[in-house]
């Protein structure tokens, strides 16, 4: 069958990568922070802050690029609060991360309220203009390759950025002294301190980087893949990122594989939800009687099962979640 001229397989592959992109982007930052020993379960909140900041800044300035920049800055700013509380004041990272999530729900809702009011007062549209925000960008030539072309080379610019970032971080972690320091920060912070490396400063840097990544991932949701904001629009994707970092055993290839798996199942369930009404096959017809919430649940069930079976043998960084007092 065909959807808008593409085969179902090509369509699904492209959707999979689209769904995986924000997870990869936020996951790279979270992975780096966790490698240095800081777990930020507030990633969901950081993404949400990125969503609203990106949307509002793009709406006001009329530029998608400004929106993305604002999302990154707001992500870092929110992460800076988290870093101050956990890395410098040595508060519990899980509690502080939960607080960031709750804070973000309120702060993003408030910002959305003010944005709507300001736009209406100025007699401007609340929704983004036609050309504000990003469109997918096909790379000439490469995007014409059957199947892989649309999947890998007809994506939003954040996907290309995420892949370049993934390669750079991998090189950094495994082939530079900085990488040795980053890995040692989560494994033996005392070794870093003995080498004259400030554990707190470095961890703060990693947390800020994770905030920037999460902010960008949030902007992807509100000004790239869709051009809309809705309260709580991240819908738990930040928590999925947390589990995917564990699923990937703190490795970048593992993380990306997990993101693609999750994105794939998510796209599949969305496609099933719509095609079951248009298809003529008996199986698809039968699926109509299943409530759509069941399909929405599927990716999370798969994520839980994968975590339960795979994460056992992987302890992660030794000092993950532990404050460094010195």
């Amino acid at each position, binding site marked *: 069958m065909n959807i808008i001229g593409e085969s179902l397989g090509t369509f699904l592959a492209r959707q999979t990568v689209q769904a995986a992109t924000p997870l990869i982007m936020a996951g790279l930052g979270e992975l780096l922070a966790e490698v240095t020993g800081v777990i930020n379960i507030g990633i969901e909140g950081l993404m949400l802050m990125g969503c609203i900041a990106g949307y509002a800044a793009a709406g006001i300035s009329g530029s998608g690029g400004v929106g993305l920049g604002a999302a990154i800055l707001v992500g870092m700013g929110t992460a800076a609060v988290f870093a101050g509380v956990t890395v410098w004041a040595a508060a519990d990272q899980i509690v502080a991360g939960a607080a960031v999530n709750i804070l973000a729900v309120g702060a993003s809702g408030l910002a959305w309220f003010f944005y709507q009011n300001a736009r209406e007062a100025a007699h401007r549209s609340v929704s983004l203009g036609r050309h504000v925000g990003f469109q997918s960008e096909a790379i000439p030539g490469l995007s014409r390759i059957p199947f892989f072309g649309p999947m890998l080379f007809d994506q939003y610019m954040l996907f290309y950025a995420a892949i370049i970032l993934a390669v750079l971080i991998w090189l950094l972690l495994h082939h530079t*002294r900085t990488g040795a320091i980053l890995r040692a920060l989560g494994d033996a912070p005392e070794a870093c301190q003995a080498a004259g*490396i400030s554990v707190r400063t470095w961890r703060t840097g990693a947390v800020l980087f994770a905030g920037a990544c999460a902010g960008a991932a949030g902007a992807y949701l509100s000004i790239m893949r869709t051009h809309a904001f809705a309260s709580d629009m991240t819908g738990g994707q930040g928590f999925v990122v947390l589990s995917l970092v564990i699923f990937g055993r703190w490795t970048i290839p593992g993380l990306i594989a997990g993101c693609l798996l999750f994105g794939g199942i998510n796209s599949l369930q969305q496609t099933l939800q719509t095609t079951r009404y248009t298809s003529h096959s008996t199986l698809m017809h039968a699926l109509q009687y299943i409530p759509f919430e069941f399909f929405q649940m599927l990716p999370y069930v798969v994520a839980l099962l994968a975590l339960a079976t795979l994460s056992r043998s992987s302890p992660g960084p030794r000092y993950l979640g532990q404050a460094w007092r010195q």
Partner: protein
Amino acid sequence: MLSIENVSKAFGGVQALNNVSLAVAPGSVQGILGENGAGKTTLMNILFGLIRPDRGQIRLNGQAVVVRSPRVAQRLGIGMVHQHFKLSPALSVTDNLALAVGRNFVLLHRAAFRDRIAALARSLHWAVDPDSVVGQLNVGQQQRVEIIKALLGGGKILILDEPTAVLTPQEVDELIPAVRSLARTGITVIFISHKLSEVNRMCDRIAVLRRGELVFAGPMGELSAEDIAQRMLGAPSALSSLGASSASPGLVRLHLSRVCCTLPGTRKYKPLLNNIELSVRAGEIVGIAGVEGNGQTTLIDVIMGSLPISSGVITLDGSDLSHLANFRRARQFACIPEDRQGQGLVLSLSLTANLMLRSYRNPEFTRLGLRHVTAWRAQATKLVRSFDIRCAGVEVPIQFLSGGNQQKALIARELYGNPPVILAINPTRGLDIGATAFVLQQLTAARQRGAAVLLIHSDLDELLAISDRVMVMYAGQLLPTKWPVVDRAAIGRMMMGITPQAA
């Protein structure tokens, strides 16, 4: 030439160092001997820039230097290998060294680093693989990585802070020529220890500290071992006065039969404990020697019920223990755990509370179901006096006591009320000679009272001094020995897994 001139340092009212002067020649191995608290560590911390002296100065090649921080020390060529290694177990040797002594952040120059490490290791005749992951090296090898780290950082003067405390006898035997070969390349080594025999084998010159004062400095061999010990202690050594019991042991108290333990969910790994046969009778000390990590901690854990056994039977006085949860077993045994600060004591609680942790439920210590404050204080005071625990008061949090006094408190609590079965693992770790002798005396006294004692200890000399029977733990197996018929060296070989049948 490194010279320390008239250095003094006081902490609070305590004079940690009093007018100490010492000159160390380049390329020599200088031993610094002294009991815990004699001032060895303070002196070294001053050299390494961790502490500033109140008075006195340090000269390097005739020039006065101010060692403001470890950074400055490193720049001056002073390196220190701490007892607790500052290495990242997840990283390779190369990455660890790059982390510590590298300069740039972007390029690792792994190949160049690997070559430098390999060249240095070769010149010292050490087998160090730059690509191996540090967490997979044994303690002796990790120590060498630490030494290489200090040398690669430009170290010309190397301070080794009780390097043998973490090593097996065989690893100590390997460290000694390794340090000698360092000295031959012109490196000055300062070796801190409270073990006379090691200093004797390693050093050119020794300095003896006692209560912050330098009581002897001179070439090795000028004083006899007894003289040195006497100067360190101010009293003759007590280890020799201990001995195996003459009394014949009584009934079997603790018995392990065909006990196996496999970590849950890891069937593919070899078992932690493999077919353990062990019995401990009343009135005897059964010693278990072994290199750490061969299952000793697991053995205590399965007896105490912290880990489940996968097969076999553990009985106490003939009755099966397997149905008893570990908090119930804790009442059956006195246990001196390996990690006294983590498992044995609650550091933030007072000395009194720590002393009462086992017996707080006894009727004599409760009133209306609440704690009987005066009875607690009286009991704590009694134990403090009879076990000679030095403290500023019984209500002081136990974390402010020295390591030796913490251990005395732990032993006072566990041995109070004459427990019939005592489990002890490395009970003298980190203690000075006086406190060590005290702990060993308490164990032999408990045996005299008819207690069954299982002593797991990594210090072979102490183990052999007081055990009636000795077994060796290797790779989760318990191997019997014919001690005292066989010699120490044979047991040492068994600990390394060499010719287990020969002993």
